[in-house]
């Protein structure tokens, strides 16, 4: 019982993360009709926003230590963060500890700008081009972005820790009357709530604002909206910026779960495509649904009991589900007719 409950919880948690990671991708699909292979790279850059903020808080000057020596036996050059020098160790440590949540702000700004530049400078020339061209150009961009990140941050994963208040696991079992074995990491719970908030926010934005209405109309029929004299172009730029920012915050908040490295974008690219396609191209609610479906199924497929019956099922479950869904529901769970079918 506990095991099942934990697996469901884990599935929901994964599902939330999948949905959040795929959200920006489906947004860009749905509105702009662009296959963005750089989406994973945006996610990766978002997580490096967290690393960068941490590094910024850590900018230090060197002081030659009188007592300690380094590994070569020379006097140790101690690194003292300026923040510590200026505001004292308390403030400095507090900022460092909370750098991941704070990096959300940095990620929104930086990734929003990156998104807008990307759309203005590159993507907008590719609206009318074949999908294959879009794939190639965004893939090229993704490689460039990740190589640049590697150049400055190296190839090794860089650990980012959650604030101490959220370290360790919450005793979920105690809240709902299950055993002590039902625990779940605080940070994952927070990530889940965060995903829900962001997804809900994007929904609300598209559903209840005039801006959103125009964009949704553009999703249905770009030509007509254009004919109405609405500057759909500018709105699309903003949508792309929004998608990039969402990918960015998803990445920044994910760093305590998965120490970021330059290649993580590519690792998530295929996954987010599968989520988007299973959900149905361009459908936001489909992506959320697909995220949860895949998360829960993956979680259950990984249980020993299941694996002993079907060896290796956990390795292929995501793809298997994708195949089954696409063969039974031609356009994924909630896809619209005619989108991305040519």
């Amino acid at each position, binding site marked *: 019982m506990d095991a099942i409950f934990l697996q469901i919880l884990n599935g929901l948690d994964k599902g939330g993360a999948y949905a959040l990671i795929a959200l920006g991708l489906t947004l860009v699909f749905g509105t702009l009709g662009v296959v963005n292979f750089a989406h994973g790279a945006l996610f990766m850059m978002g997580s490096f926003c967290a690393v960068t903020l941490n590094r910024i808080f850590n900018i230090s000057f060197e002081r030659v230590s009188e007592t300690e020596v380094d590994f070569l036996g020379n006097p140790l050059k101690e690194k003292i963060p300026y923040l510590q020098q200026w505001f004292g160790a308390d403030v400095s440590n507090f900022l460092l500890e909370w750098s991941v949540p704070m990096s959300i702000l940095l990620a929104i700004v930086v990734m929003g700008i990156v998104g807008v530049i990307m759309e203005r400078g590159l993507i907008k020339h590719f609206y009318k081009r074949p*999908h294959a*061209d879009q794939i*190639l150009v965004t893939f090229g961009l993704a490689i460039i972005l990740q190589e*640049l990140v590697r150049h400055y941050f190296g190839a090794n994963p860089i650990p980012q820790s959650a604030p101490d208040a959220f370290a360790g696991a919450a005793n979920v079992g105690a809240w709902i009357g299950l055993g002590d074995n039902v625990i779940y990491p605080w940070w994952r719970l927070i990530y889940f709530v965060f995903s829900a908030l962001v997804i809900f926010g994007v929904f609300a934005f598209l559903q209840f604002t005039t801006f959103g209405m125009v964009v949704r109309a553009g999703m249905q029929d770009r030509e007509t909206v254009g004919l109405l004299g609405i500057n759909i172009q500018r709105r699309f730029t903003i949508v792309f910026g929004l998608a990039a920012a969402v990918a960015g915050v998803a990445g920044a908040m994910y760093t305590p779960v998965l120490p970021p490295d330059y290649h993580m974008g590519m690792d998530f690219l295929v996954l987010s495509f599968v989520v988007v396609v299973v959900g149905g191209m361009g459908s936001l609610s489909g992506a959320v649904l697909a995220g949860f479906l895949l998360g829960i199924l993956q979680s259950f497929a990984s249980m020993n009991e299941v694996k002993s019956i079907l060896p290796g099922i956990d*390795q292929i479950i995501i793809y298997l589900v994708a195949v089954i869904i*696409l063969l039974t529901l031609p356009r994924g769970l909630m896809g619209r007719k005619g989108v*991305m079918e040519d």
Partner: protein
Amino acid sequence: MLSTFTRNDWLLLIGFAIIILVLPWALQPIGAAYPDLLQKIAIFGIFAIGFNILFGLTGYLSFGHAAFIGIGSYVSVWSFKLLTMNVLPAVILSVGMAAVFAFLIGYVSLRRSGIYFSILTLAFAQMSYNLAYSVLTPITNGETGLQVRAIRDSAAVSLRDGDVRLIDQAMGIQEIGVPITNFFGMKMSGYPGFYFCAVLLIICFFIAMCITKSNFGMMLKAIKSNQNRLNYTGIHTRPYLISAFVISGMYAGLAGSLLAVTDPIAGAERMQWTASGEVVLMTILGGAGTLVGPVLGAGLIKYAEQKVSSWNEGILHQAFSGLPDGLQNFFVEFFSFFVGEGWHLTLGFLFMVIVIFLPGGLMEGARRIASIFRKQRTDKADEANAVGQPAE
């Protein structure tokens, strides 16, 4: 069929064949004339030509063609292990097996179109990869890859670790250590291996040419152009698509088999989605839908992977040794960003530049240059006429 080849078609075929066959000399100036790279260019050329029959003609973008490379490789290595080191059965069995798998995967995947088709093929390839890497280890030898071994001493040794080679044994062929693949006695490593691949590449090129110019090829192009209309014209498009998918799967199977022929090992990572992505990039880079483009793209990417990645700082210093020190350091610094371990960056830039400025790939670039020359020539001819006229 042959009677309908125009003079230009023959010129193209002969020119292509000559260029491929003289590559060992032609590529010397850029340091690419060594067997392995030449083999890889020929093999991936075949892969890309085959991929182009599906993608270039019908517009269906498969993200799972690497699966057939993997299947071809595994079947070939098993043929070496169980039957004979002669490559002929290996090649035939690989292509056949790839056709069977391509039919199964194609039959299912082609029920959908567009990105849905792409994701279905991707899913099949990823499943093959994941299973080959782990659960199917008894057949694939997992991460280590399936290799040719010496003849096993007893039946207790698993077939992965010891071979039987029934045909070779029956024919009483002596082996010392781990034998090398052969084509009726001709060793398939080094340059003979390259020429074996090169001849197959030329044959494959010829077949692709025939297909492109055939009724069948025209139907495939019509599918890319307007599949819906084709249905209303009385054409059932699915059999055409499945045929194209199977043909290109067979090309991939052949490529996979040749990888094993020239280097008898088969690893799971050949089936990973990035490998499928690579052939997409080769095709688009060279020019999708053209005959020569995919081969060109394959050559370029393999060259970058093999050679550009090897230009470390030492080599750069040599290259710029003629320059004064400060300038030399600057150039080395600058270029080391793009070569050696930075070769991915060069590839990324290349993709972007090509797609932005030459949407038809390198072949479009060649066409544009050719048309500039043609224009100049006609201009000159006009001038000559203009000059010549008063004299008359």
